[in-house]
């Protein structure tokens, strides 16, 4: 039991608790011991909640029964942008090293209400502003599949914590792909819900038009269980959407009725050959399973990335307005990217914002004919940490080329593992659905994972 508990699913852990094969208290001790043993190597956690998780585990253990929430006693890591009352929310920055939260974030409250056990705060790119997962202000977060490789960002620690079995679920944020990119690079599953489906109250902003909060887990099935708990309207988040009570409940699912579009332009131009092969194999798999698969072109899609950045960067600068005088406290990578947005006029920002609507209208027209788009998550091989200091490397600039499109549109989008390359590094494929059709995206990902084993691959720890 002790060695394999770290990769159990939510349902498997729940069954173990109910059958009394292990208590939440014993399981917590195993996870905390593992974190204490290996975190110095991977640096996934910035803050470990040893005492708090002990009392949470006792409460969870007392409340577990057949009727309790499936998230009872499930071990969680929170990206260090998410507030936990009386704990520092540092955003991975020296500027906020003394920023103690006075309240819990909405997602923190959701986990507490469901008697989950929060194990600590996870590492990230400074202020969540970067794609590679490197942050010179925090201990270097390392990819469990190769310690010299980047984990991807910005939710680097969350991906590494799940991939290395230090927690079952982690929460990330995604403004240009920050849940899905590290999920792809670390061989796990990361889900960005539709915009507004998960409250961002108590989560530090990067760009209010693009920010999303989402789960990272071993499987899409676990992501679905988390979404049932953290989704829903929040009057205190002005960007929150009202969703139906059954938004994440079972829906009719007939493979033969589902149309998958594979956009061959842009998403397959200039990508790594092994990534292309892996995604093509997955496309064949979907076809063999009975899905309708069609290759298409989306001619306007290449404009998406610049609109995404055109909206994101001035918003980020506005949020950072009061911090910029401490420019020497920022990491070089972040300040050098952030300052690229200086001097944007109102005319320019509004033009980006209106272009965003035009882009989203065009995408809505495309999606009226299909249920999901199937693409690679990232176009490039996982870079090495040593080559990743500059904000302007080819890898840093191209990593979010595909994911950022769906922050613009707000569509639900998931990255799931689709294999390993010849360097034994994970490859991710991305499924992106119609806006507010989150359950279908998760169902298709779950179906794929029920017929493949890529998500079960684990790195040597």
């Amino acid at each position, binding site marked *: 039991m002790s060695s394999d508990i770290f990769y159990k699913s939510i349902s498997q852990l729940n069954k173990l608790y109910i059958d009394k094969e292990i208590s939440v208290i014993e399981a917590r001790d195993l996870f905390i011991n593992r974190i204490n043993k290996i975190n110095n190597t991977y640096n996934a956690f910035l803050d470990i909640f040893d005492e708090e998780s002990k009392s949470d585990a006792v409460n969870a253990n007392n409340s577990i029964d057949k009727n309790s929430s499936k998230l009872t006693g499930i071990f969680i890591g929170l990206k260090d942008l998410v507030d936990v009352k009386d704990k520092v929310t540092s955003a991975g920055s020296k500027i906020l090293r003394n920023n103690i939260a006075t309240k819990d974030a909405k997602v923190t409250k959701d986990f507490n209400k469901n008697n989950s056990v929060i194990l600590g705060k996870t590492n990230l790119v400074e202020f969540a502003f970067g794609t590679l997962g490197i942050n010179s202000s925090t201990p270097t977060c390392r990819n469990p599949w190769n310690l010299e490789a980047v984990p991807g960002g910005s939710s680097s620690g969350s991906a590494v914590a799940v991939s290395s079995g230090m927690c079952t679920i982690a929460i990330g944020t995604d403004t240009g792909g920050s849940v899905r990119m590290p999920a792809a690079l670390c061989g796990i599953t990361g889900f960005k819900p539709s915009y507004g489906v998960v409250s961002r109250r108590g989560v530090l902003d990067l760009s209010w038009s693009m920010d999303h909060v989402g789960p990272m887990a071993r499987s899409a099935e676990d992501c679905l269980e988390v979404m049932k708990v953290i989704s829903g309207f929040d009057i205190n988040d002005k960007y929150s959407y009202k969703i139906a009570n059954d938004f994440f409940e079972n829906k009719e699912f007939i493979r033969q009725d589902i149309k998958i579009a594979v956009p061959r332009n842009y998403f397959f131009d200039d990508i790594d050959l092994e990534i292309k092969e892996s995604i093509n194999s997955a496309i064949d798999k979907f076809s063999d399973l009975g899905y309708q698969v069609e290759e298409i072109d989306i001619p306007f899609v290449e404009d998406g990335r610049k609109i995404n950045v055109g909206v994101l960067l001035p918003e980020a600068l506005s949020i950072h307005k009061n911090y910029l005088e401490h420019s020497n406290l920022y990491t*070089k990578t972040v300040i*050098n990217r952030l*300052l690229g947005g200086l001097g944007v006029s109102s005319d320019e920002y509004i033009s980006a914002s209106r272009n965003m609507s035009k882009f989203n209208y065009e995408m809505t027209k495309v999606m009226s004919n299909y249920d999901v788009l199937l693409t690679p998550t990232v176009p490039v091989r996982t870079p090495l940490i040593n080559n990743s200091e500059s904000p302007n490397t080819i890898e840093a600039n191209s990593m979010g080329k595909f994911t950022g499109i769906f922050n613009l549109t707000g569509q639900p989008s998931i990255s799931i593992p689709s294999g390993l390359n010849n360097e034994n590094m994970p490859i991710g494929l991305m499924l992106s659905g119609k806006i507010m059709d989150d359950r279908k995206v998760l169902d298709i990902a779950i179906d794929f994972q029920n017929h493949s084993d890529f998500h079960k691959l684990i790195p040597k720890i």
Partner: protein
Amino acid sequence: MKKDISTKEYFKQLLENKNIKLCDEDFDQSYLSYRNFRKSYSDLLKEDYSEFEPRQRIFDLNE
């Protein structure tokens, strides 16, 4: 005559206005980001978006 806002001198002035001091290496990297970003905006301003309000995501195609 319209000022060329993508020059190094203009960027330097923007930094000075915010009282931001950078070493040469950081200045070059930031300026590279700035120049790329200027190029994106000049492209975006050329688009015709007159029928669209800012940041809309949900559309009824039947309307």
